[in-house]
């Protein structure tokens, strides 16, 4: 007589099923709740100080009402663009090497290890490194130094996601290209990267969003500035820095501006991430999976 599941404990199994479903839903709520709480609180605190001037004016001295963070918004944009421009190509390149060419080589293992360690380095240490490597020799703070510091922080995330996403591309797809007489580098650049691109883009966005809010590395590099950015070789204003300066100040007016700045920062990150997704998601073919 083959063993059959008995009908006897169906009720118990259904109860267990319900229990675990409820636990899973509860965990989901717990994950989402902090994000919503932060957003709602930021909206509540920050929206009052938001006006057109916030986006168009420079900061005013203490006591003078009004003023905005326009230079910080532009400054953050410049620093992040620079960081992405430097960090993403290097990260993707290293990821390609690790998966497509590294094989079991010692160099690949060394790079992988370095990337993992780099990922764990506290951001303030990254700031000090950029300070001593770029700011000290140049004898001035600069947007460039800030971009480099953030770029280095982006590299490990981009490298490891690129490697992992390339690993999900079926080998059959690579063989198809190689079998057509397409050279290896071209196979990698077109077929492998293209197939892995949705995941790689997500990795880049994660890295971007992570460094967008970093303050510590900017303290020693961007330094902050009350005026419009004029050159990459000058100290530059940045949203997280400005928020920090206003938040630790003793003035209520500045506290309100800091809340508004935090709200703008988080909204800008969400908007840019969504925008990249929409733009890169377009042109996808229907069908597929």
């Amino acid at each position: 007589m083959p063993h059959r599941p008995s009908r006897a404990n169906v009720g118990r199994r259904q109860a267990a099923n319900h229990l675990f479903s409820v636990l899973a839903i509860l965990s989901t709520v717990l994950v989402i709740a902090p994000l919503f709480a932060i957003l709602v609180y930021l909206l509540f605190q920050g929206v009052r100080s938001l006006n057109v001037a916030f986006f168009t004016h420079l900061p005013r001295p203490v006591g003078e009402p009004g003023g905005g963070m326009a230079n910080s918004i532009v400054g953050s944009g410049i620093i992040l663009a620079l960081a992405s421009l430097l960090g993403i190509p290097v990260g993707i390149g290293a990821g390609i090497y690790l998966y497509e060419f590294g094989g079991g080589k010692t160099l690949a293992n060394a790079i992988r290890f370095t990337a993992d360690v780099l990922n764990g380095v506290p951001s303030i240490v990254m700031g000090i490194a950029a300070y001593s490597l770029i700011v000290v020799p140049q004898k001035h703070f600069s947007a460039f130094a800030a971009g480099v510091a953030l770029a280095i922080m982006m590299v490990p995330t981009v490298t490891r996601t690129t490697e992992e996403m390339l690993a999900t591309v079926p080998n059959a797809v690579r063989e198809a290209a190689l079998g057509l007489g397409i050279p290896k580098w071209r196979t990698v650049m077109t077929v492998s990267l293209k197939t892995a691109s949705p995941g790689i883009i997500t990795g880049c966005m994660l890295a971007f969003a992570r460094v967008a809010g970093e303050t510590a590395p900017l303290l020693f590099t961007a330094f902050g500035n009350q005026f419009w950015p004029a050159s990459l070789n000058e100290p530059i204003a940045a949203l997280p820095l400005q928020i920090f300066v206003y938040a630790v100040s003793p003035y209520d007016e500045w506290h309100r501006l800091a809340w508004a700045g935090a709200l703008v920062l988080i909204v800008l990150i969400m908007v840019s991430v969504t925008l990249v997704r929409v733009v890169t998601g377009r042109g996808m073919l229907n069908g597929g999976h």
Partner: protein
Amino acid sequence: MGVGIEVEDLNAWYGQTHTLKGINLQIPANSATALIGPSGCGKSTFVRCLNRMHETNPVARAEGTVRVGNVDIYKDASPVEVRRRIGMVFERPNPFPTMSIYDNVASGLKLNGFRNKRVLDEVVERSLRQAALWDEVKDHLKSKSGASLSGGQQQRLCIARAIAVDPEVLLMDEPASALDPVSTAKIEDLIFQLKDEYTIVIVTHNMQQAARVAEKTGFFLSGHLVEFDSTHKIFTNPSDKRTEDYITGRFG
């Protein structure tokens, strides 16, 4: 037009394992040649040695001479040149998932830098017609992904992609083993049509398939080519006892 293939004393290894042992054979031009044998006998390794695909595996290596037409493919050509002349169709259909049907077929030309749109259009239509897929896909060539087709259609798409670069030889590694009987019959019809223009080498587990499509058949066993003769002779009056045992199902 297809060209013949001459193989002389071909040996291959995966790491320490000697998988092909002194293979000698001559594959005639513009005909279909089937390779049969139990799993692990070396027939897939053998076809991969014919277009140097085995080199994509870092532990694989081969020694010996393979002449395709008049070219010694191990001495006088790069792997990339070899594979442009010798197309390959794999066991599992492997269309490029991010490309449209059109781009899949055009990929061999496009990714080698060919851009003339009028010629590409022509090649895509001709290849899809040759692969008997044109009527099924002509209305959504550029709007549907290659991966949206059924398994049998995908395999015919892969055949279209392979013949779009106008190879002289077409290697097929169990092209129908992942397909249902209807799709299999379509692929076999296709091989029948294509062999007038290309030299076809087909690895198969299905002996009826070998008997249906191939003029010549080779029987592989543990890395040796046991017997290579006309398909009729192999299936009706094999010279070697081991071939007879295999085709009558007494082992394997």
